C-alpha cells in the first residue's frame, strides 16, 4: 500500500467552481520553499513512522500548477534526499496532480512533465460538454470578498481546458478524468460522459458530491439519467474500451458488520501539509475545506505528528460511524463517504458520525447499475462474449477523492 502525502502548495486557483468544497480559497496562502523543505526533511528523517512500501507525493491547490516552480524544486529535492538517505521510497514513488488543465500546455509545466515522466500521474478535471462544464467550472472574479475569498464570474473555462486534452492524452493515454455531480448537473450526465469518451478519455471517474445539496426528486432524475447512460454505453458498444465509475459490479450488496467493517476513507492514513506548515489527516480537514468546523490539525512540521490525534482515524470502522439504517441497508456496498464531510456535517466535533446526505442518490445509482449489468450481460451472453468480457474489460476506478 502506498502512503499518500499531499502538499497544499496554494489555496489560489484561476477558477471559482460553484460546487467547489474549498470554501476558503484565497491568494495569500502560498507555500514557501522553506516550509516545503522542512516538511520533507521531517518525513524523510522519520522513516520508521512511514513504513508503507511506496509513496505518492500529491500536489493540490487551489490549482497546483500555479506553483510549478516551487513544485519542480520540491520534486528535485525529494528525489535527491530519497537517494542520499537510501530511503525505501527511492524508486518507489509517484508525483500526482489533479489539475484544472488550464496551464497544462505552458513551457514550465511541460518541462516538469518531461523531467518526471516515469513517476508522474496527472488528472485533468473536465466535467463533460461545454454547457455542463461551464455551468460550474467558471473563472474567478478579479476582486475578492472582504475576507479575501474568491468569487465566481460568469466566464466558463471549457475552451481553455479542452484544448489541452489531446496533449494530455498523448502523454498519458490511460489517464482518467474526475467528474463531480451536484443537483444542477443531473440532466447533463449522459451527454457529458459520452462527450468525454468522444474526446478520447477512456476512464471517467464520476461521483455525486457528499454535501447535503440534494433536492426532492433528484434521485429520480439521477436514476433516469443513469438508465439513459447505461443504454447509450451498451447500445453504442462503449463498454469494451471505456469505463464509467458509476457502473460497478461490486456495488449494491448488503454488507456484513464484521467481515465488511473497514472504513471507506483513507483520512489519517494520508498526510497533508499546508503553507503554514500545519499537518492534517487529509486536505479535507484544512480550514479552507470546512464550512462549519475548525480545522483538525494533527501536528506541524516543527513538532511532527501528534500520534494520539491519529488514533481515532486509524481505529475508525464502518459500523461504529454508521447509523442503524446504513447497517440494515440491503444495497450498502459502494455507498461512500468522505471523513472530512462527515466531520463538517456532524452534530458534534467528531469524525464518528456518518453523513447520509447521498442515501437516496446511492439507491438510485444501485437501481440503474443493476439495470446496466443485467442488460449488458444478457447482450454478451446472446453474443457469446460474456466470458471474454469478464476477463478483459476495463475496470472502473473506485477512488473518489
Amino acid at each position, binding site marked *: 500500500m502506498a502512503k499518500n502525502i499531499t502538499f497544499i502548495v496554494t489555496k489560489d486557483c484561476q477558477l471559482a467552481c460553484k460546487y467547489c468544497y474549498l470554501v476558503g480559497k484565497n491568494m495569500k496562502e502560498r507555500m514557501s520553499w522553506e516550509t516545503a523543505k522542512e516538511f520533507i526533511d521531517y518525513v524523510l528523517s522519520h522513516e520508521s513512522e512511514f513504513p508503507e512500501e511506496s509513496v505518492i507525493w500529491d500536489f493540490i491547490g487551489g490549482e497546483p500548477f500555479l506553483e510549478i516552480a516551487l513544485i519542480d524544486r520540491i520534486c528535485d529535492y525529494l528525489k535527491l534526499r530519497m537517494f542520499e538517505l537510501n530511503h525505501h521510497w527511492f524508486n518507489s514513488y509517484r508525483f500526482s496532480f489533479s489539475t484544472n488543465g488550464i496551464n497544462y500546455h505552458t513551457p514550465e509545466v511541460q518541462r516538469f512533465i518531461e523531467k518526471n515522466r516515469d513517476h508522474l500521474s496527472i488528472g485533468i478535471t473536465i466535467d463533460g460538454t461545454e454547457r455542463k462544464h461551464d455551468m460550474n467550472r467558471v473563472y474567478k472574479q478579479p476582486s475578492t470578498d472582504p475576507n479575501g475569498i474568491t468569487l465566481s464570474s460568469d466566464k466558463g473555462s471549457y475552451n481553455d481546458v479542452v484544448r489541452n486534452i489531446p496533449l494530455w492524452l498523448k502523454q498519458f493515454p490511460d489517464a482518467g478524468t474526475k467528474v463531480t455531480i451536484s443537483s444542477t448537473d443531473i440532466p447533463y450526465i449522459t451527454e457529458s460522459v459520452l462527450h468525454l469518451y468522444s474526446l478520447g478519455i477512456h476512464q471517467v471517474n464520476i461521483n455525486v458530491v457528499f454535501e447535503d445539496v440534494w433536492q426532492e426528486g433528484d434521485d429520480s432524475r439521477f436514476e433516469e439519467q443513469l438508465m439513459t447512460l447505461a443504454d447509450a454505453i451498451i447500445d453504442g458498444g462503449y463498454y469494451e474500451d471505456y469505463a464509467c465509475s458509476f457502473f460497478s459490479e461490486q456495488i449494491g450488496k448488503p454488507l456484513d458488520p464484521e467481515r465488511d467493517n473497514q472504513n471507506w476513507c483513507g483520512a489519517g492514513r494520508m498526510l497533508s501539509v499546508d503553507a503554514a506548515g500545519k499537518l492534517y489527516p487529509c486536505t479535507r480537514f484544512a480550514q479552507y475545506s470546512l464550512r462549519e468546523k475548525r480545522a483538525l490539525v494533527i501536528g506541524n512540521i516543527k513538532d511532527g505528528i501528534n500520534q494520539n490525534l491519529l488514533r*481515532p482515524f486509524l481505529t475508525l470502522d464502518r459500523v*461504529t460511524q454508521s447509523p442503524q439504517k446504513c447497517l440494515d441497508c440491503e444495497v450498502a456496498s459502494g455507498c461512500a463517504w468522505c471523513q472530512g464531510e462527515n466531520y463538517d456535517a456532524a*452534530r458534534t466535533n*467528531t*469524525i*464518528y458520525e456518518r453523513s447520509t446526505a447521498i442515501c437516496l442518490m446511492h439507491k438510485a445509482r444501485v437501481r440503474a447499475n443493476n439495470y446496466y449489468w443485467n442488460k449488458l450481460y444478457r447482450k454478451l451472453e446472446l453474443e457469446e462474449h460474456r466470458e471474454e468480457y469478464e476477463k478483459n474489460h476495463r475496470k472502473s476506478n473506485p477512488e473518489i477523492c
Partner: protein
Amino acid sequence: MMQYLVILLDDTSVSYCHCDNPHKERRLIGLDDLRMSIRYAMMENLMVQMVYPNYALPQEYLDVIDTIDHHDIVPWGTGDRPVQEPDVVVMDGLSGESPVLRNVPYVLRITKAGLFKSVDAVAQLTQQVARLNVVITDVETITDAELPKYREVLDTLAEVVKAEYLTGCAPQLNLLTDRMMLDKPNHCNAGVENITLAPNGRFYLCPAFYYTDADDNVGSVAEGLDIRNPQLLRLDHAPLCRHCDVWHCRRCVWLNRKMTYEVNTPSHEQCVMAHTERETTRRLLANVREKATFMSEVEIKEIDYSDPFDVRKEW
C-alpha cells in the same frame, strides 16, 4: 441507562477526578435549581451524589438536600466539616495527617510525581481506610520512559496489598484490586449512567466538562437533557475499548476528548497506564495464590502488549 445525578453544589465543590477545578470563588447553586434538580432526579429515578465545597452550607440548602436520599462527596479539609457522615472523602494530595473516618472510601488526587515520591505514604493510607481510589491527575503527561517507575511504584503497593491479604484483611486499592474483583467493565460511563448538574443550572457530561468550558453543556433541568451523539459515549461505540479487558479503567471520556479529540478513543498514555495496572494485578494475584487459595474463579490472562492500539489489526 442513566442512574446517577451528580450535583456540584458550589463552584468550589471538590474535584474528585482527573481534572482540577479551576474555580476559586464561591458560587452556590441556586436554591430553585437545586430543588428542580432533586425533583428531576426523583422523576427519572436517579441516585443523587452531592459534591460539597470546603465550607458549611446554609441551613436552607441542607434542608433541601435532605429531601432526597443521596450520597455526600466531601473534601478533606481543615475548614468546617460540610456534613457529618460523608460517603466519600476527597484528598487533594497527601496532607500528612491520618484519616479520621476509617470506614469511608477515600479518593486521593495526586500527580504522578507525587505518587512516585510518596508511595510509602500511599501504601500506609491503603491500610488505613476502607477503600482508596488513587486518581492520577496528570495521566496525559506520562512518557514511555516513566513507565518502569510506575511499574516499580505499583509493585511496592502490591507487596503491601499482598501482605494484607495474607493476614486476612481485604484492602481495596483501585489500581490493583478492582480488576481482580470485576467480571465485566466498570468504566466511569459519564453521559451514559451518570450526568452532572453544575451550579449554573446546566447539565454536563461530567464535572470536567464544566471546569473546562461552561458552554460545553448538554441541556438544563428546565430544558431537559440534550446529549448529541450519545452513542459515542457507550462502550460498543469505542473501537479500542470494546475489545479491551482492562475493566477497572475509567475510560474517561473527558481525557479521551482532550487527548484524541474523540470521546470514544483513549490516548496512548491512558492505555499504557491502565495496562500496567492490569499486569501488576495479574502478578499480584499469582503471588498471593502461591501462599494461599485466593479468588480461584478469577483469571487475568497474560498479554504481550500495553496499548491495544498496537494490536488492533488482530481483531
